[in-house]
């Protein structure tokens, strides 16, 4: 791969050849400040879901990196993402988590903005400004690009960034697993009402790398497996298809996205699940059959934890959730967790899944709790002068990834490691930090869109 660097970002901090990554990138104040500039101001970030703002004038608070933003639908129905800060003196123009409005009026000096971001009201415009303020220049700061992808709203502050589909590259099908219906119909997922938001004392990259596909941390969750919170109300915490499918680590090397993926054997049906809940079991059996009919071979793919660079986590199996790891200083992360169900699912199914989601995920989730304890104290124990001298190791599976893997006729693009037998690799983390280092080093998107270089080189030959 032409863009691979063995040593990246201030040589020695991210050393992919040896699989060693310095603790500095997690705990260092200056590196954190640089991340805000080089990563969060340039990458595509998840902002919310269109189902949160169905009607004109609807808005919901969100965040992009450290910035507070407003996701809203204007009176004409168009979706916008604005910086939640008055252009005059910076006050938040809205401090409600959600609502419906025709204007956002700043409580400080009274500037008001339409839901399309235009500055529509300036007190003493004639008297104090002599009607000379160019109001067209002082609307709310809007993101440079926004994309409504099957209801998921992503945005970036960088006008030079590639389009969102190009940013996703071959990762698109894994976001599809998240946003499409279980029966394979496009964009049928809807958000359950209520976004969980909570603070964890760790660097944002701890959850990001965990959701990139850390299959090595089974010990973390042994207690929840013993307590038995599976989807049927007992047993292991997840579903049975893991026992019959190929389990892969899939990394899109030039994009920095990565995921765990289950691929069902050809011609084999997904094992029956939720046996203790007949309505639910029936619903999913119906969806699986529909999916096979609609997608054919595509129905063999079953999603799992994954990460869109830099801080959007996917989990397209159950519990079906997305999360955003908002940086709040090098030592703190504000986690936002969104939960999905099929729009058309019977309410019994939605309620059943909701119960499972709450007991599994989030701060009261019996699985996620133990993750956060690890991120908390791993971070805390990495801050000392001595601790920082000793890098973490990400050596598992170095040099064993297969480019464009194939399993029983199913082609899986990217760098892939089959972890069915070997259980674990650290390819996803190396993939994440390779991209992280590229972002930290590159001056602009011309350098970051590495796939275009390769395409150009190929065309020249």
């Amino acid at each position, binding site marked *: 791969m032409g863009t691979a660097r063995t040593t990246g970002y201030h040589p020695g901090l991210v050393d992919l050849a040896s699989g060693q990554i310095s603790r500095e990138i997690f705990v260092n104040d200056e590196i954190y400040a640089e991340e805000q500039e080089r990563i969060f101001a340039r990458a595509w970030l998840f902002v919310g879901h269109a189902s949160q703002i169905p009607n004109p004038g609807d808005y919901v608070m969100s965040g992009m990196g450290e910035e507070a933003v407003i996701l809203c639908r204007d009176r004409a129905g168009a979706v916008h993402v604005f910086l939640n800060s008055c252009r005059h003196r910076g006050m938040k123009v809205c401090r409600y988590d959600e609502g419906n409005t025709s204007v956002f009026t700043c409580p400080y000096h009274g500037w008001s903005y339409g839901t399309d971001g235009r500055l529509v009201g300036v007190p003493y415009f004639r008297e104090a400004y002599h009607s000379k303020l160019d109001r067209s220049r002082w609307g709310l700061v809007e993101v440079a690009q926004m994309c409504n992808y099957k209801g998921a709203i992503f945005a970036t502050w960088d006008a030079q960034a590639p389009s969102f589909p190009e940013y996703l590259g071959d990762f698109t099908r894994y976001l599809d697993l998240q946003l499409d219906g279980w029966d394979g119909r496009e964009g049928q997922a809807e958000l359950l009402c209520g976004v969980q938001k909570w603070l964890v004392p760790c660097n944002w990259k701890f959850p990001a790398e965990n959701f990139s596909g850390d299959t090595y941390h089974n010990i973390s969750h042994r207690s929840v497996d013993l307590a038995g919170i599976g989807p049927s*109300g007992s047993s292991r915490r997840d579903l049975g298809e893991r026992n019959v499918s190929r389990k892969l680590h899939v990394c899109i090397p030039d994009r920095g996205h990565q995921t765990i993926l289950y691929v069902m054997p050809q011609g084999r049906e997904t094992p029956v699940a939720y046996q203790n809940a007949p309505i639910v079991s029936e619903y999913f059996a119906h969806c699986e059959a529909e999916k096979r009919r609609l997608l054919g071979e595509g129905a063999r793919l079953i999603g799992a934890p994954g990460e869109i660079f830099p801080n959007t986590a996917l989990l397209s199996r159950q519990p079906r959730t997305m999360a955003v790891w908002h940086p709040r200083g090098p030592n703190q992360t504000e986690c936002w967790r969104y939960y999905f169900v099929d729009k058309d699912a019977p309410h019994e199914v939605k309620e059943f899944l909701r119960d499972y989601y709450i*007991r599994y995920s989030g701060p009261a989730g019996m699985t996620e709790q133990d993750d956060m304890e690890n991120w908390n104290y791993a971070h805390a124990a990495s801050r000392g002068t001595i601790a920082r001298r000793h890098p973490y190791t990400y050596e598992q599976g170095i040099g064993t990834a297969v480019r464009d893997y194939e399993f029983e006729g199913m082609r899986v693009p990217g760098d892939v490691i089959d972890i069915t037998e070997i259980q674990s690799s650290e390819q996803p983390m190396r993939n994440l930090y390779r991209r992280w280092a590229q972002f930290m080093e590159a001056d602009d998107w011309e350098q970051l869109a590495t796939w275009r270089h390769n395409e150009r080189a190929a065309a020249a030959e």
Partner: protein
Amino acid sequence: MSDRDDRISRLLLAQDVAEFLYGEAELLDERRHDEWLALLADDIRYWMPMRRNVKFGEGEREFTRSVTDINWFDEGKDTLARRVKQIQTGIHWAEEPQSRIAHLVTNVQIIEASPSVADAREVSVKCRFLIYRNRVATETDLLVGKREDLLRRENGDWRIARRKIILDQNVLLSKNLTFFF
């Protein structure tokens, strides 16, 4: 019944209910979780909504709804028992080593007693809580809010049939909720 008798009945009930709630807090703080579970009615609903900032007059949108929405907690006894079981595995890292927890229960108010104060079979009671959690070395959480409980008499003893927990926070300031309210 005379006015005086009525007041005495109220006083006795208030005292009885407060003692029950303090005793419950004692069990939790002493980590006697199995005994605590025994205080819960089999059909208990244990619900802790999330809270949103909403405009004045839109109060009904402030709380996430039970059953349909995502909440911090919204579950029955089976899940609560599994939470206890998880702590008791000794490898639930978020509670291992175990936290030091103190429940302060105060402002206990009887809202309703049925069929009567003198012969109460069900009591709806409000209180304030302050939960202090300290764990490992310096990690400390303070959670303050209100509780609305429905207590039911079963074989002469109070059982908790419903608990609504109203935490006075928007973004949860604690990394997890591994303990009981």
